[in-house]
């Protein structure tokens, strides 16, 4: 190995490094904002927020939701350039936040823009990383987010204020159906003990007055793809076997052998089982129809196993 060759090789490396540097100084065009048909481009990280935004924006907006597959685990998403480009050129981006879609934060910071409006649901609700991120299962939070989407759209296109407001009123009326049903469950089944395999059910149980008794250590571990502590598994099994639990809610998108075991155990103990998903299912339906369907299933299951209180 002579020194000359070594210098030659390191020379190449330095030259290439300089080329990299040249990139930096090259004109850093601000990302173009393309508005085909003059419609506002909205990107929602998940389709539940996308569905709400498209109902308020109506014909004035074009909404692209990135996570739309009810059969995939949304915690395990990997970005592609089409999604990154959509975020780069969007006028308005809605993300869930609280660590649920940290990839979206990265895509946003990779495409800085001074004109883009960003709605981070978690920070709107005063939540932080580590809090339960399934905000769309709380009717109160959904109403808050819906209102904020309206405000953001009006800020982006003040000319369409009355159009957006009209759509917002229609949406709020439509949301009432499932929200009234939740109130109905609260009226008749308040305090009934229920279990869930994942912490997706937390906010809904709160809103409907149901007493979610399944050990948090278990539901959190399942949500995070981790092993639940053995003690929490034992507690969970006892709750199902003793018959104190009247309903088992399981997350159809985070299924593990352990959650399947719990399902089987509930089945043998005649506890009704209801599946809920993280993402709108089927994907072409609206947010409120999806929610309403899930809540009807929950109410029917409760009717089967518990006597309605007047």
């Amino acid at each position, binding site marked *: 190995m002579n020194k000359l060759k070594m210098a*030659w090789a390191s020379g190449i490396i330095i030259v290439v490094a300089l080329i990299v540097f040249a990139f930096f100084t090259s004109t850093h065009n601000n990302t173009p904002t393309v508005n085909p048909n003059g419609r506002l481009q909205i990107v929602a990280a998940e389709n539940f927020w996308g569905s709400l935004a498209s109902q308020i924006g109506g014909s004035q907006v074009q909404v692209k939701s990135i996570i739309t597959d009810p059969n995939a685990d949304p915690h395990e998403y990997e970005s592609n*350039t*089409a999604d990154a480009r959509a975020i780069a050129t969007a006028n308005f981006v809605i993300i869930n936040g609280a660590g*649920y879609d940290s990839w979206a934060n*990265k895509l946003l910071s*990779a*495409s800085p823009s001074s004109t883009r409006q960003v709605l981070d649901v978690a920070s709107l609700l005063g939540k932080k*990383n580590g809090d339960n991120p399934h905000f769309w299962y709380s009717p109160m939070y959904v109403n808050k987010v819906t209102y904020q989407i309206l405000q953001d759209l009006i800020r982006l296109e003040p000319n369409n204020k009355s159009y957006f407001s009209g759509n917002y009123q229609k949406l709020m009326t439509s949301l009432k159906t499932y929200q009234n049903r939740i109130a109905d469950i609260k009226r008749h089944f308040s305090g009934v003990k229920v279990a869930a395999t994942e912490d997706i059910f937390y906010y809904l149980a709160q809103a409907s007055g149901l007493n979610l008794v399944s050990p948090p250590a278990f539901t959190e571990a399942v949500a995070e793809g981790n092993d639940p502590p053995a003690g929490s598994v034992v507690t969970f099994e006892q709750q199902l076997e003793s018959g104190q639990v009247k309903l088992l809610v399981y997350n159809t998108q985070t299924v593990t052998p352990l959650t399947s075991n719990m399902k089987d155990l509930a089945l043998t103990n005649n506890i009704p089982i209801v599946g809920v998903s993280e993402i709108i299912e089927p994907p072409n339906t609206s947010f409120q129809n999806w929610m309403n369907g899930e809540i009807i299933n929950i109410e029917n299951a409760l009717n089967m196993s518990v006597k309605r209180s007047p």
Partner: protein
Amino acid sequence: MLRSLAVISNTAFSWNIAQDLRSMWQYAFMQHAFEAGTIVAIVAGVVGYFVVIRRLSFAAHALSHVGFAGAAGAALIGVNPIYGLLAFTSGGGLAMAALGRKAASRDVQIGTVLAFMLGLGVLFISLYKGYATEAYSLLFGEILGISSTDVYITLIAGILILIATLLLYRRLLFTSLDEDVAEARGISILGMSICFMLLIAVATSIAIQVVGVLLIFALMVTPAAAAQRISGRPLQGITISVIISLVVSWIGLFVSYYVAYPVSFFIVSAAFAVYLATRLIPQRAARS
């Protein structure tokens, strides 16, 4: 069929490559991806060459996963994940070097250290009250989600790693090719082993945050393995390894702009295709 058609994005590809590149570099995220991808490819091509001749690809794989435990630990005590990554990959690298002094016995020591570190990672994740996706997202770093600050950090780290490699070059090569003779000449095998493990540790820690575990591991091993089959001479080998690593990264990013599948898939596939192609070259007698 319909599904696969739908996935092709509407941005048109033309045979005017310069025009294509200009149109993708309009996007800041594509620029950052090419910049960071280039730096990581150069560093991985150089460091990877030694990884391959020292037969340390398992160690490189292990260190990138040990980083996971570190990131989880950092999340637990609430500090920036990069400190956890650096602490754990360096610690893991030291342990692997110290336990497996000779190449022959290293395999098992790396496995045991890796298993222990992964166990720690699982513990930290369950102790951590937050949402674990954050820690997991480190494992799959987003090459399309690189900010300009990330690019500068990568650039500085990359230059430091290349300088360190240059300074250690002769001794590193000597101990890699013939441990016994090098030891007889008074070079500390353990010392070099530790130095090199630390080098991989720093390289992976920086690259994990930017391009993710899969890419750093693929770029460290595959291009260098292909280069080794093309040339037995170290300097040529390193140069070829850097070139392959650069070319596959660029091809992967380029293709992914038009076909909406994950970038890492394209880069790893391109690298593997190059490696397979070099397998067709009849292996010449090993030269040193």
